[in-house]
C-alpha cells in the first residue's frame, strides 16, 4: 500500500463544531448553509434552481405533442386570435394540478400510481395504470400520425418515416438506459423553441392578439363546434400522464420538501413556456389564415403546414413541419417514460424501463409489440385518423378526472403529507379546477356519443354543478376541520424535514366521509362514461 491519507480527524471533526442545524450539505454540492437563511442572493437562487430544474419543464413542455400542435393550429386557423385567452386561463390550472403532485412526490418519495394503490386499494391502482398504458399507446399512435404528416411535408413517404421513428423509439427503449433517454428529451425540448421564429416570421397583428388574450369570446359566437374547440385545447394541454410523470420524476430526482419552492418555480416556468409555445402557434396560424379562403376550414397539420408555406413563405411551412415532428417525438418519449414509471410503481421495479431487456422480457416484448402496433395502425391506408384522435380524447377524459381526484384526495391525507396537506384556500381552488376538468371531460365523452347534443346548454348545466360543488367545498374547509392541528405548530425547519413515515403505508386508511363521497362520485362518472362508450361502440358496429 503506497502511503495513506494523513489523519485529518483532529482539525476537521475534533474542533470544528458544526451541526446540521448550522450547515446543510445540500444536494448537488453547490448549495451551502446560507441558502436556507432568508438572505439569499439571486445568483445562489438561480444556481439552485438550475440544479433542481427539470421535471416541471419536461412534463409541461413535453405536453406540446403532435395532438397539441395540431389543436393549437386548428384554433388559430378556425378562430383566429379569439381563443388566446383560454391559454392564459390554463396557466393556473396547470400550476395547481402539477403543484399537487410535486408536493406528493417530494414528501412521500413514492409515485402517484403506487400511492393510489396503497391508499385506495389495488383496484384503483390497477385501474390507473391499465388506463394509462392504453391511453399512452393511443397517444403514441397520434404521435406517429404527426411524424407521418411532417415527413409528408418534406416529401418523404410516411411508409419510410414512421417505421424509422418506430425503430428509433423501440431501439432507445431497448437500450435500457433511462438517463440517456431523459437527457435526449432536453434536446427535443430545446428544439421546440422553434415556435418563436415561427411567431416572428408570421407577423401577427399585435392589436388583435392582445384583444384575443384579454377578451374571452370566440370568433363567430359560441357554437357547439366552438365549445368543443375550447375543450380540445384544455384537453390536450391538461393531460393525465403529466400528473404521473412529474410525481415520479420528482421522486427520481430526489427532490425533497426543502427544494419544493424551486421545483414549484420550475413548474410555473414550464407552465408559462408551454403556454407561450401554444400561443405562438395559434398566433402564427391566425395571422396566416385570417382573411383567406382556408380560414375556419382546418383539415390537418399537413394542411396547416402547406397553408403557412403558401401564405407566409416556404421557410415558415418548414418550421411548422419541423415543430410538428419535434413535438411528435417529445410526446412519444414522454408517454413512454410515464408508462415505464407507472409500471415500476405498481409491479415493482422489475417491470420497467430501468431494467435491461433480459431482466424484463415480458415488459419489453409487450412494449415493442404495442409500439409496432401503434405505428402499423397509422400506416394502414385509409385508417380513420379522426376515430383515433377521438379515442385518445375520450380515454383521456376517463382517466384525467380519476388522476386529479386522487391527487386532490391524497393532498388532504394527513398521514401521507403531514404538514404539507392542502391549505383550505388551495382546496377550494383545487376543487373548482378539478370540477371544471370533470365537467369538460363529461362533455367530451357525452358529445362523442351524442353528436347532436347542445354543448352550450350542457356546459351551463354542468357549470352550475361545479360552482355548487366548489361552494360546498369552500364551506366545508372554511368551517374549520383543521386537517392537521399538530402540524400547524411546526417550525419551518421541522416542516422542511418532514417526510412521509413508512408507517403510513403499513395499512390502508379508514374511509372518511369525504373520501367515500369522492370515490362514489368518481365511480359513478366512470360507469356513465363507460356505458356511453359501449353504446357508441354498438352504434358503430351496427352502422358499419
Amino acid at each position: 500500500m503506497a502511503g495513506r491519507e494523513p489523519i485529518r480527524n483532529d482539525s476537521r471533526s475534533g474542533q470544528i463544531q458544526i451541526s446540521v442545524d448550522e450547515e446543510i450539505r445540500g444536494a448537488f454540492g453547490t448549495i451551502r448553509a446560507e441558502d436556507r437563511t432568508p438572505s439569499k442572493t439571486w445568483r445562489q437562487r438561480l444556481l439552485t434552481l438550475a440544479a433542481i430544474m427539470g421535471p416541471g419543464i419536461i412534463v409541461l413542455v413535453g405536453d406540446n405533442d403532435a395532438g397539441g400542435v395540431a389543436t393549437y393550429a386548428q384554433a388559430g386557423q378556425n378562430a383566429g386570435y379569439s381563443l388566446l385567452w383560454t391559454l392564459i386561463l390554463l396557466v393556473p390550472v396547470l400550476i395547481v394540478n402539477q403543484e399537487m403532485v410535486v408536493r406528493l412526490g417530494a414528501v412521500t418519495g413514492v409515485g402517484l400510481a403506487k400511492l393510489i394503490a396503497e391508499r385506495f386499494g389495488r383496484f384503483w391502482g390497477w385501474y390507473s395504470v391499465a388506463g394509462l398504458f392504453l391511453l399512452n399507446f393511443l397517444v403514441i399512435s397520434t404521435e406517429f400520425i404527426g411524424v407521418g404528416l411532417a415527413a409528408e411535408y418534406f416529401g418523404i413517404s410516411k411508409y419510410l418515416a414512421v417505421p424509422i421513428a418506430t425503430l428509433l423509439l423501440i431501439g432507445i427503449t431497448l437500450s435500457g438506459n433511462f438517463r440517456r433517454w431523459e437527457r435526449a428529451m432536453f434536446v427535443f425540448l430545446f428544439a421546440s423553441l422553434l415556435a418563436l421564429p415561427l411567431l416572428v416570421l408570421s407577423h401577427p397583428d399585435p392589436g388583435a392578439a392582445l384583444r384575443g388574450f384579454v377578451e374571452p369570446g370566440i370568433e363567430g359566437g359560441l357554437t357547439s363546434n366552438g365549445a368543443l374547440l375550447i375543450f380540445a385545447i384544455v384537453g390536450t394541454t391538461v393531460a393525465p400522464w403529466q400528473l404521473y410523470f412529474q410525481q415520479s420524476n420528482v421522486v427520481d430526482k430526489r427532490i425533497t420538501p426543502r427544494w419544493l419552492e424551486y421545483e414549484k418555480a420550475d413548474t410555473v416556468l414550464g407552465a408559462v413556456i408551454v403556454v407561450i409555445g401554444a400561443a405562438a402557434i395559434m398566433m402564427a396560424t391566425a395571422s396566416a389564415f385570417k382573411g383567406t379562403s382556408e380560414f375556419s376550414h382546418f383539415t390537418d397539420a399537413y394542411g396547416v403546414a402547406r397553408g403557412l408555406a403558401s401564405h407566409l413563405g416556404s421557410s415558415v411551412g418548414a418550421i411548422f413541419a419541423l415543430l410538428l415532428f419535434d413535438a411528435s417525438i417529445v410526446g412519444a418519449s414522454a408517454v413512454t417514460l410515464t408508462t415505464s414509471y407507472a409500471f415500476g410503481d405498481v409491479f415493482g421495479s422489475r417491470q420497467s424501463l430501468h431494467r435491461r431487456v433480459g431482466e424484463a422480457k415480458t415488459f419489453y416484448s409487450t412494449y415493442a409489440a404495442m409500439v409496432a402496433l401503434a405505428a402499423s395502425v397509422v400506416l394502414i391506408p385509409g385508417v380513420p385518423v379522426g376515430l383515433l384522435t377521438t379515442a385518445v380524447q375520450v380515454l383521456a377524459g376517463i382517466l384525467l378526472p380519476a388522476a386529479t381526484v386522487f391527487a386532490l384526495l391524497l393532498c388532504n391525507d394527513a398521514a401521507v403529507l403531514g404538514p404539507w396537506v392542502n391549505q383550505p384556500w388551495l382546496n377550494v381552488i383545487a376543487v373548482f379546477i378539478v370540477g371544471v376538468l370533470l365537467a369538460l371531460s363529461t362533455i367530451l365523452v357525452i358529445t362523442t356519443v351524442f353528436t347532436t347534443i347542445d354543448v352550450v346548454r350542457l356546459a351551463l348545466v354542468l357549470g352550475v354543478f361545479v360552482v355548487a360543488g366548489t361552494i360546498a367545498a369552500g364551506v366545508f374547509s372554511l368551517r374549520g376541520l383543521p386537517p392537521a392541528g399538530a402540524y400547524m405548530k411546526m417550525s419551518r425547519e421541522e416542516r422542511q424535514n418532514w417526510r412521509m413515515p413508512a408507517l403510513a403505508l403499513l395499512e390502508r386508511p379508514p374511509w372518511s366521509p369525504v373520501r367515500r363521497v369522492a370515490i362514489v362520485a368518481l365511480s359513478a362518472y366512470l360507469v356513465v362514461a363507460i356505458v356511453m362508450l359501449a353504446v357508441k361502440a354498438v352504434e358503430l358496429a351496427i352502422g358499419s
Partner: protein
Amino acid sequence: MSDRVGDGQMQKNESAEEKRRVTVTQLLRSPVFNPAGEQVGRLEDLIAKLADGGYPPIKGLKVRIAGRDVFVGGSSIDKLEPGAVRLRTGTLDTAEFQRRPGEVLLAADVLGRHLMDVARGRLVQAHDLVLGQVGTEWRLLGVDRSPQAMLRRLVPRRARPDLRRHVLLDWKDVQPFVAHVPTAKLLVPLQRLRRLHPAQIADLVEGASHEEGEEIMDAVEGDVELTADIFEELDEEHRTEFLKSRSDEEAARVLDRMAPDDAADLLGELDQERRLPVLNMMSNTQQLKLRKLLQYHPTTAGGMMSPDYVWVLRDATVDEALEAIRTDDKSPHQLLATVFITEADGRFVGSIAAVDLLRSQHGRKVSELPLVKMHIGAGADIVEVTLMMADYNLTALGVTDGQGNLIGAISVDDLIQALIPDDWRSRVEASSGV
C-alpha cells in the same frame, strides 16, 4: 480452488485416460450395437444417479429400439466410445423406459442447463458433460462450460471437433438444479451450498431463473439464519419476489433474523394486507425496532439507520469503550468499528473510531479524546447523509432526534448499497455471466 488446479488433476495421464473418457454429445443419437456387432437401436439418453454424492454413476441407457424407448442397465454397457455404444448382452429387456426416483437423464435434465459452481459461487452452463470409466463403472466426471462446447452442439455429429482434452469443471464442484426433473424427488443438498458465502449464494439466486432461485431458497430454508443472511444480500427485486412467495409465518421468521433497517424496507414491499399480520408475528424486540424505524421515510436518515450501535456514556474510559465493542452482540458488523458517546439522558456527545481507541491510553476518558461531533437529524435525506459522511470521512454517522438524542447510526455500507448506479450492476452481471 482455482480453475488450473482442478483441471490439472483431471488432465493427468491424458492419453491413457482419454480413451476412457467420452462426452455426452459424442454419444447421443449414436448407434447401439449388440455383441454380434449388429445395430439394435440409437442412444437417446443416459441415466445417472445423483443421490449418493461423488461422481454419479451411469445407471443405464435410454435406447430407442424399433420406435420404443427401452431401458438398458448400466451393467450391460461394454464400451462407450464417440459415435458408438457397444453392449455386453444380446438379450434386452424390452420393458418401456420409466423414470425412477433419484435418477436424472443427462441429456434431458442436465445438458445445456444452468449448474451451480459451488466452489466459486457462480452459475455455469453445462454445454457438455464428460463421462469416464472408473473401474468397471462409467461415471459423470465433469462439465465442459466452454463456448466451443456450445458451438460444437450445433455442428453435425460427424463433423464435431473432439473436445475431450478440453478444460473441465470437476463434478465435485458442481451442483445441478434438479427440481425440474419429474419423479426424481431430489433436493439441492444444503451442505453443498454451505461452502459459499451468503453473498455468493445471493449472487447465484440473482443470476438464476426464478425457478432455479426458488430451488436454492428451498434448499437453505431449513437454516433460518442463513436464509436471513442471503435475504440481506439479495437485491430488492429478488428479496421481494422470494418473500412474497412465503407464508406469513415464514416471512416473519426471516424478517426477524434480518437487520432491522433491511427488514423495515422489505416489510414495505409486501402486499399491504400482509404487512401488519407479518409484523405482528415477529418477536417483540424486532417489532419494537421496526416500529421505531417505520416512523421515518425509508430514504431518510431515520429510515436507513440501525437502531443498534455500540455506545458508552461520556465519562467512560477507553478500556470500557473497547469492552463495549467486544461484548456487543446486536449491532451490525459494519457499525462495530465506531463507538458512540452520549450523555446519561441519551443526548449525543460524539463518536470515535475503534482504531483511535486502540491507539489511546487505556485509562483516559473518552470525552477527552478528539471526538467526531458530526451527527444528523432523522429527517435528513440520503443526499445530505452521503455528503456529510464523504466530506468528513466518516464510516458511521450518528442519527439524532429533534432534541439531540442519539436514536440510531448509519454505516457507510448502507449508503453504498443505495448509491450504486443501476448500470454498475448490469456491468458486473454481464461480465461474470454464464
